[in-house]
């Protein structure tokens, strides 16, 4: 799939831009702080309805527009999927914000082919994979970062995942509130039954989707990694479900999984009431990245981490293609500068398979003249875009 047209209004430093996008490679070049990353971020927004840089989406609203009566940020895109043209529009309406950066509540309106949809229903129509330097936080930071990665990837591809995740999250907030209430005031623990069932219902589908996706992505990423490392490293990503600690102990059958999950939730009533929070479930899941048997978080060198992430992203790209039959749009931010020549060549080679790639750089010298000739080069300067070739 590919974008054919993109228009941004009040998106970060872009007051207003509109571009027509070609098939193949677009290289966004410019000095620091000109808007290159912001442009990639806006394209990812079309796939995930959230930013890849921050979980505070209100930050994308243009500073100057914050002074408007009703500040509205707009991302409007036309894209081609399976030879059909579609239109996706996102309106981000800032409510109750002051001129200050990052304040106010953001209301999201999504129109897919002119019809209003909620995010859970609109997700999955436009797909993108993002490859950015900050991804090392998947490995360095806590488990929330890794769950966010899983969620943003799976919501795009697995039907019903986004919906289950929304319901799970809402249910979890309510179950936890009820646990606190029971802890402080006592009362009938039978009121937990409904929330146990709701969490087991949505949660078992989340767990089983994560389990399958992690195995499938690993199967695609590890041969890539093997080649990239001159057949020296075996890479795998392991799913650590909070329910059973190890993936191997998860019941293979979804109904069995549901039954044992529900039994655990019920069995935990006393502990959960005492803690005032739900102790097991997908909100406590984690991932581990392993190279040659060692956990990358503990033993990985910077270079190993970078290579592993590259393999992961290429695996993810293939996975999305296999699941949906469509190649997602690939977004690369500055990542080439960090790679050695061999890995850079490996990456550029895999990009040739993509229908569309947007990549940013401050330095065109990182690319071969051949590569540059194959694509378009856009100059990004102070929130303006100029197509220079």
């Amino acid at each position, binding site marked *: 799939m590919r974008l054919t047209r993109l228009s941004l209004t009040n998106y970060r430093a872009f007051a207003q831009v509109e571009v027509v996008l070609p098939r193949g490679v677009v290289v966004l070049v410019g000095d620091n702080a000109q808007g290159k990353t912001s442009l990639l971020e806006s394209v990812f927004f079309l796939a995930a309805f959230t930013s890849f840089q921050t979980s505070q989406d209100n930050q994308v609203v243009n500073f100057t527009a914050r002074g408007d009566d009703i500040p509205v940020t707009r991302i409007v895109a036309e894209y081609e999927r399976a030879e059909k043209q579609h239109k996706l529009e996102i309106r981000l309406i800032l409510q109750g914000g002051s001129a200050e950066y990052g304040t106010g509540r953001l209301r999201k309106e999504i129109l897919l082919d002119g019809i209003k949809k909620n995010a859970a229903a609109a997700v999955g129509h436009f797909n993108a994979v993002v490859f950015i330097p900050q991804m090392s936080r998947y490995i360095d930071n806590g488990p929330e970062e890794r769950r966010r990665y899983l969620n943003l990837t799976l919501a795009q591809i697995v039907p019903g995942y986004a*919906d289950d995740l929304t319901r799970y999250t809402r249910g979890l907030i309510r179950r936890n509130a009820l646990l606190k209430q029971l802890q402080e005031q006592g*009362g009938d623990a039978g009121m937990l039954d409904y929330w146990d069932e709701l969490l087991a219902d949505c949660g078992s589908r989340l767990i089983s989707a994560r389990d399958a996706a992690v195995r499938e992505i690993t199967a695609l990423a590890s041969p890539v990694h093997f080649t990239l490392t001159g057949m020296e490293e075996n890479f795998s990503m392991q799913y650590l479900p909070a329910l059973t600690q190890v993936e191997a102990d998860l019941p293979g059958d979804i109904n069995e999984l549901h039954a044992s999950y529900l039994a655990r939730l019920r069995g935990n009533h006393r502990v959960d009431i005492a803690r005032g929070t739900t102790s097991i479930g997908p909100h406590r899941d984690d991932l581990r990245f392993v190279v040659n048997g060692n956990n990358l978080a503990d033993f990985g060198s910077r270079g190993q981490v970078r290579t592993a992430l590259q393999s992961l992203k290429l695996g993810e790209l293939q996975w999305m293609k296999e699941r949906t039959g469509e190649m997602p749009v690939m977004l690369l931010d500055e990542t080439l500068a960090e790679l050695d020549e061999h890995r850079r060549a490996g990456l550029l080679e895999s990009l040739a398979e993509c229908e569309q790639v947007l990549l940013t750089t401050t330095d065109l010298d990182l690319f071969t003249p051949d590569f540059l000739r194959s694509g378009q080069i856009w100059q990004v300067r102070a929130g303006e875009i100029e197509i220079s070739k």
Partner: protein
Amino acid sequence: MAGLPEPLQDLVDAFSRLPGIGPKTASRLAFYLLNSPDEVSHGLSSALEGLKAGITLCPECFNITLAGRERCEICSSSQRDTASLCVVEKPLDVLVLEKTGAFTGRYHVLHGVLSPIEGIGPNDLRIRELLDRVRNGDIHEVILATNPSMEGDATAQYLQKQLAGSGARVTRLARGLPVGGELEYADQNTLLRALAGRQEL
């Protein structure tokens, strides 16, 4: 900065406390009243005063009714089927169901739903009264008509468990696709529920 004169500001504040009314609408309403003939504001003020004094809750079903009445119109009507009870969240729901004319039994208004977030438990609702009514009356069917929200569903499930063994048949309002709606526009949840609640033709 010079503010509004106090009496005007008081009214603006009072309007702003109402649901769905923001500061701008509140000022517009207040200025409208200030500029309209006296009858308009007198009419409003006496309607407001009459509201609390003139309305009370029916001791049987807890729907709102005229003060001074022993029971509400529905509870005291001999035309209504006394064997079936429809449980709703709020008085407005009774009005909506009555408009359809399809239900001939009587109601029970809970005045809310179990809400963990707002800290509303069974004792904050008219649940004990409901259980008493079902136990002591000759009720054959209880229709749970709380909203199809998470809280509404949780409340219905809780009531269903409490009512088990009462002898009454407990049913839940069917949920599904809005009439006149198109399949394509329905969200996934609505579709799943409609599918789960499908009926033989």
